[in-house]
């Protein structure tokens, strides 16, 4: 489903965020991406979302070599992808419904279809009934869940999340992670970048550990020695 082959990313300021990183993630898998901040977690997600392009190496998503993706096909590619950020990136001047509906509007869904799917997505994140509220009227956890509803409303094949629990207390963080696992249960490939080791341990999913832009290891249960060193 997702394949990184000797991927190197060097930013214009000279920093190498990824160094010859190679790993693969199967369809329908849920994977944690961990490592200290600056280890390259975000860069992996940016490369998958085509927010950045690799300096060297190959990224393949869903059988598509991203280097060969033409820029006019980029919007369609992004529509098959759900993205969740630490800062939720909602539009503050639009109610929850409009925020969640945005991927459907962009894809040209019909009005009736849109209403059904937005409510289904809000139901999944437990926010049904708050469609008319503005993001600022919601708590931080609720805002994060609106962001998740927006990411999944168009039923993407791949869901990527960058520190989705960064602003949440442990109980809420666990809630959000459980939500991600429910999407995995229905066949979505989920990649979550997080430094929240507590959550990672709790879930026992496969974990890819990054350190200084290199893959340190990949295990079904994170090994304390790999995550706690230095």
């Amino acid at each position, binding site marked *: 489903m997702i394949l990184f082959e000797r991927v190197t990313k060097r930013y214009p300021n000279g920093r190498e965020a990824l160094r010859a990183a190679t790993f693969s993630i199967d369809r329908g898998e849920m994977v944690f991406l961990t490592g200290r901040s600056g280890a390259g977690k975000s860069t992996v997600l940016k490369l998958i979302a085509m927010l950045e392009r690799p300096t060297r190496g190959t990224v393949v998503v869903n059988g598509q070599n991203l280097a060969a993706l033409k820029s006019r096909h980029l919007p369609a590619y*992004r529509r098959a*992808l759900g993205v969740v950020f630490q800062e939720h990136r909602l539009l503050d001047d639009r109610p929850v419904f409009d925020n969640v509906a945005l991927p459907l509007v962009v894809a040209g869904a019909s*009005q009736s279809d849109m209403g059904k799917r937005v409510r289904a997505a809000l139901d999944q994140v437990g926010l049904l009934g708050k469609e008319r509220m503005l993001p600022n009227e919601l708590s931080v956890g609720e805002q994060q869940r609106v962001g998740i509803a927006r990411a999944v409303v168009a039923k993407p094949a791949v869901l990527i999340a960058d520190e989705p629990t960064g602003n949440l207390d442990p109980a809420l963080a666990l809630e959000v992670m459980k939500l991600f696992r429910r999407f995995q249960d229905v066949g979505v490939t989920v990649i979550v970048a997080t430094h929240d080791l507590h959550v990672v341990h709790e879930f026992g999913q496969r974990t890819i550990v990054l350190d200084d832009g290199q893959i340190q290891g990949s295990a079904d249960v994170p090994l304390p020695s790999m995550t706690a060193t230095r």
Partner: protein
Amino acid sequence: MLGYLTHHAQALLGSIGRLVRTPFATALTVLVIGLALALPLALALFVSNAMRATGGFTGAVEVSVYFKPEVAMARVQQLAQSARGRADVATVQVISAADALKEFRQYSGFGAALQSLGQNPLPNVLHVLPAGNASGPADLAALQHYLAAWPEVDLVQVDAEWVLRFNAILALLRRVLGIATVLLGAGVLGVIGNTIRLEIQGRRTEIEVVRLVGGSTGFVRRPFLYAGMLYGLWGAGLAWALVAVAVLVLRAPVAMLAQLYGSSFTLSGPGLQQLGLVFGAGLSLGWLGAWLAAARHLRGIEPRA
């Protein structure tokens, strides 16, 4: 197809909503565009009214043919007939010396003085009106040449100088109109482009999010194009209203002035064709200005990583 139309309707309604929510800024932009479009429209109207006021030029150019005193009336009629046969002649009116004298006596106030003259000092005259398509300077010269070639003719007078001058003034005005139209059109383009540029900057976050969830360039650009077209259309509407009001205000004094000149001329407002041109110009300038701004400024907006 329906989804496509819905898309466009949503973009249009969204653009209207945004423009209406900032009424003061929108009104200022529309005012500038309206004034810029009103100026060439007013000038065009002035030119077309001036042409109508002078009754076109075909009726204004007249060639007077004065015969030598000894030429008999029968010969005059004969020559008049042959002049009527020419393609570049519309009408020929014969004014006999006797008629001319009668008229002169009646209107000039020299009746008593004329009485003392032994004989009629006035010649027989032809008033030749050139055909509508033959009133240019070259045509008039040819006609004059033909008439003057008759041995019976004393003098051929072409009363065309002022017409040529007036024609030249109108040609100049039309050129000024052309220049003003181009300059003000460029101004409208700039105003709309700048307004859309500011709007794009103000909605940067939204554009980033839309791009992130897979909005195509066309989707992102659409509301801005509609906003540009709305500015242009509203500006055109304002321009039309301004000119229409000006025409209403000027109509009475113009009619008064025309009456003093013995004319029944009334000022006419913008016709359908001019209306179509103004709205077409507003629409296309709005679209183009917005498109240019979008092409220039949307490119740099990619989702922040």
